[in-house]
């Protein structure tokens, strides 16, 4: 048995265990409980007693069982081999676990996070005599076809490199270099450990002005998210939180994806495992799984590991950020994580605040989201961590504590709308409750990349959507026929915009993602229809005539018919539209 005895079990209450006879336990220390060696973490110390939360099912643990302290906090193993792997909440590789314990997860199995037998092709990037400080790059490994893994010095070490191995194949455990530090000679390997609850240090934070392009039009065009930003996706069950998260994980322009299935369905993780290896990333031509790390703590796995899974995920994300990557992390769902906090807090008999959640819930949420950002890293690169957190409000009611507190700490909010989901309008991101505070920050980027007045176009369509809502209220009372043509045309354009632009079919080859060029062109076409059409109505053209134009049918299906690679068809639609309206106006003028 690893570690030293720190005490004996006094009481067992679900995943929370009270320990007595404590001598030298450390707060947040990793422990193993009882003869079954269940993994746990010290969460409270008081006199000679302590409270431990156990990451596995505690059936069978009895008072008097010994508790062993490992002497370090709960940490993750960082090094090559993370990519493409599926882990549970405390970084046990599930595929390895399958070999060891079969189809059902057994208790007390501890496995290293990285494969210790696999050999990696190492290339040194430093030479003896180099002065290295924490977080600096001293080697690299080609981890997958698309991911070059930079080997970082542990952020808390610094010194002079004494020796370093030649390029060659090594495992993560072999000593590849030695570092002369004030505390003596340190061996360096491909991997190092980092405690999950501590943010990894960086040099400086940068401002957020580059958007994370998701390929989803409603997101990129209406409510953009910046690289290094934070967003919450709240929605009742069945409104498509997971579908939206999956779509972003598949098509967004991040280098690395960390997908945390926190307290969600087992089949959903299986779905990702089946689907991602087969999907090809349009930017690099490699399989999507080669840039993805999955963390699966399904709803029936122990609740305290659910609490840890969020931190495990963000630490892995920060590690790749420190190598100079842009990482997007999906947490599905942060509500389950908050509920895990609540359950553990309740078992520890802490005083509850709102709806039974502990009073420190907002602090924990803030700590988590603040680990996002666009950073200058210690290695001298720049990298970012973007957090996309799903929230599952009970009853779809956004006034509940988790949604409300999350709103305080994110700058972008994609509210999923039950009515849109019921009409199978996906992604069901409602345009009235959603917002993004990054619009002004990312507008220069858009305008430079596309050469179009993006923020003016966006403003125009948002204004129309707002007008439409007010008109719809009138329509509910008197019917659409009572409105003048100029106002009915607003309804007409908005309906086209919703069907042809906002709604996106994630199963269609051409429509599952849209490049920024396609998005802007589509938007321009619809706005041209609005501008020219409303002018034509002033000149006497009827709305029925406008609606019957053949080109409108084509515009309605342009998202499906025009591929991202060749947008020339869209320019043709625009000129056909202009011509058709010109002709109509000519008739009325003469």
């Amino acid at each position, binding site marked *: 048995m690893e570690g030293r005895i720190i005490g004996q079990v*006094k*009481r*067992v209450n*679900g995943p929370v265990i*009270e320990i007595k006879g404590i001598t030298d336990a450390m707060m947040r220390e990793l422990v193993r409980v009882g*003869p*079954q060696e269940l993994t746990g973490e010290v969460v409270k110390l008081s006199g000679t007693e302590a409270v431990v939360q156990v990451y596995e*099912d*505690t*059936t*069978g*643990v*009895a*008072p*008097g069982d010994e508790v062993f302290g490992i002497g370090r906090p709960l940490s993750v193993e960082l090094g090559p081999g993370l990519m493409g792997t*599926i882990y549970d909440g405390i970084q046990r590789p*599930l595929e390895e*676990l*399958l070999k060891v*314990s079969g*189809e*059902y*997860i057994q208790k007390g199995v501890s496995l290293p996070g990285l494969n210790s037998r696999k050999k990696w092709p190492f290339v040194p990037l430093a030479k003896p005599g180099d002065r290295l400080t924490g977080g600096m790059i001293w080697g690299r490994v080609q981890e997958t076809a698309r991911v070059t893994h930079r080997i970082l010095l542990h952020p808390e070490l610094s010194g002079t490199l004494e020796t370093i191995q030649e390029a060659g194949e090594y495992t993560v455990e072999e000593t590849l270099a030695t570092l002369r530090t004030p505390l003596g000679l340190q061996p360096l390997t491909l991997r190092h450990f980092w405690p999950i609850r501590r943010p990894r240090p960086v040099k400086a934070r940068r401002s957020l002005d580059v958007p994370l392009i998701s390929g989803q039009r409603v997101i990129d065009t209406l409510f953009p998210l910046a690289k290094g930003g934070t967003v919450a996706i709240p929605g*009742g*069950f*069945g409104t498509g939180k997971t579908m939206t998260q999956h779509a972003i994980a598949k098509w967004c322009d991040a280098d690395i994806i960390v997908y945390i299935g926190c*307290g969600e*369905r*087992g*089949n959903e993780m*299986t*779905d990702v*495992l*089946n689907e991602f290896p087969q999907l090809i990333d349009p930017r690099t031509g490699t399989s999507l799984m080669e840039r993805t790390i999955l963390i699966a703590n*399904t*709803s*029936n*796995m122990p*609740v305290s590991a659910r609490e840890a899974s969020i931190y495990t995920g963000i630490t892995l994300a920060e590690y790749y950020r420190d190598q100079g990557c842009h990482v997007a992390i999906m947490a599905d769902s942060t509500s*389950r994580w908050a*509920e895990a906090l*609540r*359950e553990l807090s*309740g078992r520890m008999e802490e005083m*509850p605040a709102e*709806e*039974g959640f502990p009073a420190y819930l907002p602090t924990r949420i803030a700590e988590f989201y603040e680990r996002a950002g666009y950073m200058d890293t210690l290695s001298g690169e720049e990298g970012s961590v973007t957090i996309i957190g799903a929230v599952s409000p*009970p*009853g779809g009611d956004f006034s509940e504590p988790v949604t409300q507190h999350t709103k305080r700490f994110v700058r972008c909010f994609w509210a999923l709308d039950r009515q849109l989901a*019921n*009409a*199978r309008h996906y992604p069901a991101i409602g345009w009235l409750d959603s917002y993004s505070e990054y619009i002004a920050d990312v507008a220069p980027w858009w305008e430079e990349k596309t050469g179009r007045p993006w923020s003016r176009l966006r403003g125009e369509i948002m204004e129309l959507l707002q007008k439409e809502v007010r008109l719809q209220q009138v*329509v*509910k*009372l*008197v*019917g*659409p*026929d009572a409105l003048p043509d100029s106002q009915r045309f607003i309804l007409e354009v908005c309906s086209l915009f919703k*069907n042809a632009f906002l709604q996106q079919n994630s199963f269609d080859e051409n429509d599952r993602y849209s490049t920024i060029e396609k998005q802007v062109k589509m938007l321009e076409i619809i706005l041209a229809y609005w501008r020219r059409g409303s002018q034509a109505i002033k000149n006497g053209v009827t709305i029925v005539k406008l609606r019957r134009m053949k080109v409108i049918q084509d515009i309605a299906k342009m998202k499906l018919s025009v591929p991202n690679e060749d947008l020339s068809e869209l320019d043709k639609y625009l000129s056909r539209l202009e011509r058709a309206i010109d002709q109509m106006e000519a008739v009325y003028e003469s």
Partner: protein
Amino acid sequence: MSPSPNLPGDPARELLSGREYNGADRIEGPLVYVRKTHPVGYRELVECRDREGQLRLGMVLDTSDDAVVVQIFEGASGLTLPDTRIRFMGEPLSLGVCQGMLGRVFDGLGRPRDQGSAPRAEERLDVNGRPINPTAREYPRDFIQTGISIIDGMTTLIRGQKLPIFSGNGLPHNDLAAQIARQAKIRGGDSSFAVVFAAMGVKHDVARFFISSFEESGVLDNVALFLSLADDPSIERTITPRTALTLAEHLAFNKGMHVLVIMTDMTNYCESLREISTLRGEIPSRKGYPGYLYSDLAELYERSGMLKGTPGSITQLPILTMPNDDISHPIPDLTGYITEGQIVFERDMNGRGIYPPVAGLPSLSRLMKDGIGEGMTRKDHPHLSNQLFAAYSYVKDVRNLASVIGEEELTPLDHQYMEFGEFFEREFISQDFKTDRTIEETLDLGWKSLSKLPPEELHRVTEDEIQEYLP
């Protein structure tokens, strides 16, 4: 499959397990407190004998140096403080399982309730099960034809799915569940199937309805029933679905059978959990339900699906009655977050005589996308169902408008939508309790409904599909 759960431990503890304690210190509802015991494991099985020597089973809920809290499944009524004898068994509650349990009736703890003798167990399994490793799961994608149009066409049931029925008191959820159990089949596939039925707190006549319905369709020999009826102790209900699912797992993953598990009524199950939680003075979350209700329900619902390299499957059909027809009540709400969709009943449709009264829009099957279309159902199915949803959703808007401005004021197009809505509800959704429609019949009916609309309104189907299928 999790093996017989003998807990590892030091020999002293194994010797001590089985030791009997005379007298309890406190009895409160179904909870019995015992002091000064040997170290007792969390969730250990407990045998408890009352003054007459009658055996009751229980489980350790909390264990500490000075006291152990035991939950007695049969309830504590009749127990006395001095004359209660308690024996801790040193292992969790387990169920002896075998294929011979099909065709039999058991109580909530898995003891025979019919006249037969106890079945000879091939294996003893921990009723709490274990989480399935997500990498061991096979993603479900086999279409189950239930013969019910609204389900097959719009919220398709997939083998290995968990699809609950959200119903209300007085609505025909039992009929629908029985109809699904009777008609469900895999097209082109003929393999051994079984039904495991768990009743929690339902009335005697409901249990009888299911039994006679299974009898009529001649499948009773393939059904195992676990009954914890309305007049049985409410605490027994917290274990009933677990025993039922333990047998289901054995049949599916050890015997390669396709098992349909019907669990009714989940609301009663949750009520029992709340009862125990309140008695123990736990901090409640919404509406007095314990904070771990989500995790607890997930432990049940996640025991479904398919495993790689194993032929069997578990499909779950839990039934719950929404208190006050409120879908945002914690029970349906948390269930919906765990299950792969839901079939929602609407009282208004039932009132208009539509059976099954399934509300089209809030009902959903999450696994449908991978189980329908060419080679599985028919190639027009994905677009068709999408179009029907969109059109039906518009019908709801038109109806709201009509109730304000009157039907006469509607535009001609809106009138057509009203007509479509009526046809869709009366002909497509509505069908007889005995009617078994093939998927082709269902899809053709869907196209027939769409023919009430002008073709240019059909944005979500392709031109080719309109040519081929629109009558």
